């Protein structure tokens, strides 16, 4: 259980977050420079908040009112740095050994166990610069877990790796973290990583938490504009409410029916690119005649930028198709109409 309220002023903006975990993995998602890493560093005790309170399993790590600021080495927090922070002048073995205390023989036993567990056999005498990115990450994890931390903080653990390695290593880490019973905080700017690792998440934007809750709920129903953007919703338009189940999307110039009632707080409507459906019948509900404004072909997706054909000054809309459904030739033909299924519309405030 981690309970944190952190206020810190730095480089032109204010970090002001408050969150709670109840075991398991908690994700912190946000764009670069939103204060994610600073939050982790404050929890670990390598940065000092201006004010606030951090309590972990009943132990007060920081309390500005009572003047408590436990040094990092007494917090029993494992921190996996973005660049792994292996000590460059030490071999793998010495990197693992440095935090251990006790007799040399016992240390050696612990180290060889850890080396086996993290599949580092044969690398004991190598220096960090002689290891691949994935190996460095395993050494850093092994070193961190040797200290028997009560909480683990992962700071963008996969950002420094190339895409090919990433997927394998993510599965490996999931496996290794399964054995860990304490709290895990996982910071990332990648919504895919957060979705994969974290049951709960908090969304940070400009130093403030936008939403907090179960990861799956937030992805399904982001509720806030910032949350919709950070979870990957590219199409967002301000609205004018017409009736309880009908609205006008101002940027797209289209009247849309909704499945859920439109509350007073609803200011925007959003829809994910892959939820738009091509149709031939313009009479269907929530359908727009489109014209193509641009397209891009990625490995597994076709991405189109389309516009309302009846008004070319309207905002562009991303429409995404998975490639496997279509033959390459058919991909070239653009349907005349796109449908905004009402059950996929995101009502946002």
């Amino acid at each position, binding site marked *: 259980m981690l309970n944190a309220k952190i206020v810190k002023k730095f480089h032109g903006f204010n970090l002001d977050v408050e969150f709670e975990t109840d075991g398991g993995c908690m994700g912190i998602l946000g764009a670069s420079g939103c204060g994610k890493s600073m939050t982790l560093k404050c929890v670990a005790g390598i940065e000092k908040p201006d004010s606030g309170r951090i309590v972990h399993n009943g132990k007060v790590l920081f309390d500005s009112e009572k003047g408590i600021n436990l040094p990092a080495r007494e917090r029993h927090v*494992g921190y996996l740095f973005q660049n792994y922070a292996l000590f460059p002048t030490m071999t793998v073995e010495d990197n693992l050994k440095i935090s251990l205390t006790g007799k040399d023989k016992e240390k050696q036993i612990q180290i060889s166990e850890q080396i086996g567990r993290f599949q580092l056999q044969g690398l004991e005498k190598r220096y960090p610069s002689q290891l691949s990115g994935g190996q460095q990450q395993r050494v850093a994890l092994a070193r961190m877990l040797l200290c028997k931390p009560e909480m683990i903080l992962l700071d963008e653990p996969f950002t420094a790796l190339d895409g090919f390695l990433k997927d394998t290593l993510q599965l490996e880490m999931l496996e290794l973290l399964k054995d860990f019973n304490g709290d895990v905080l996982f910071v990332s700017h990648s919504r895919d990583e957060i979705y994969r690792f974290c049951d709960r998440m908090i969304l940070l934007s400009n130093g403030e938490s936008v939403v907090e809750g179960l990861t799956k709920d937030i992805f399904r129903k982001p509720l806030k504009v910032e949350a919709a953007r950070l979870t990957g919703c590219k199409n967002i338009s301000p609205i004018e409410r017409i009736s309880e189940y009908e609205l006008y999307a101002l940027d797209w110039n289209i009247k849309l029916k909704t499945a859920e009632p439109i509350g007073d707080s609803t200011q925007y409507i959003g829809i994910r690119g892959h939820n738009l459906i091509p149709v031939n019948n313009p009479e269907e509900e929530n359908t727009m005649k489109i014209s193509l404004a641009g397209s891009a072909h990625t490995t597994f997706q076709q991405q189109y930028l389309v516009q309302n054909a009846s008004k070319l000054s309207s905002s562009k809309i991303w429409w995404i198709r998975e490639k496997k459904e279509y033959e390459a030739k058919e991909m070239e033909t653009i349907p005349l109409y796109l449908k905004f299924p009402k059950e996929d519309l995101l009502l946002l405030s």
Partner: protein
Amino acid sequence: MGELLKTIDWSPLYLSLKTGIVATVLTFFLGIGAARQIMKLNNTAKAIADGILTLPLVLPPTVAGFFLLLIFSLRRPFGRYLLENFDIKLVQTWPGCVMAAFVIAFPLMYRNARAAFEQVDVTMIQAGRTLGLSERKIFWKIVVPIAAPGLASGTVLSFARAIGEYGATTMLAGNILGKTRTVSVAIATEVTAGNWDTAGFWVLVIVLLSFFIVASMNIIAGKNMNNGSGWA
């Protein structure tokens, strides 16, 4: 030349080396200590403290010598205090040579150490802290080894500067053969006395010694600081 070698008094070389070694050991530890303490200060205090510690490098050595005399002269309170309470005398003595060489060489060590420490990635230190290491262990086991190339070049430069010290040495320690006459002081003395052969000999010694020091530093640096960029 053979004649000269037979009659020469080797004490200046011996004194220079001894002074250089002792002064370098002092600058090594105090320079590292000062660098570490100064990095903890805020920016204004840092600028002022850095300025004071660097002064001996930019001032004429005679100015440093003047201040040293002002402090340690037996006619001044602190100098008298040292003599009466600890029996320490720096004026016209070999410890005076060491003190003069130390003061002049210190900024080289301090500045190199500080630059080397400032290059150390701060996440190394933060990692050490989260791994539960003491600040002392972090400093000696992590920071110092990473900064080693910079510390090594600082040490070598300090040593080279210390054995060549002349200005502050003559003012504080004087020029007593066998006691405070180092090679650099001997050169000036021999030239004044018209003994160009002896002066030339000492010049040769100091040139060779200095070259040897700088060349060995380049070799060490070449080994440790090859960053593989191939920038030529």
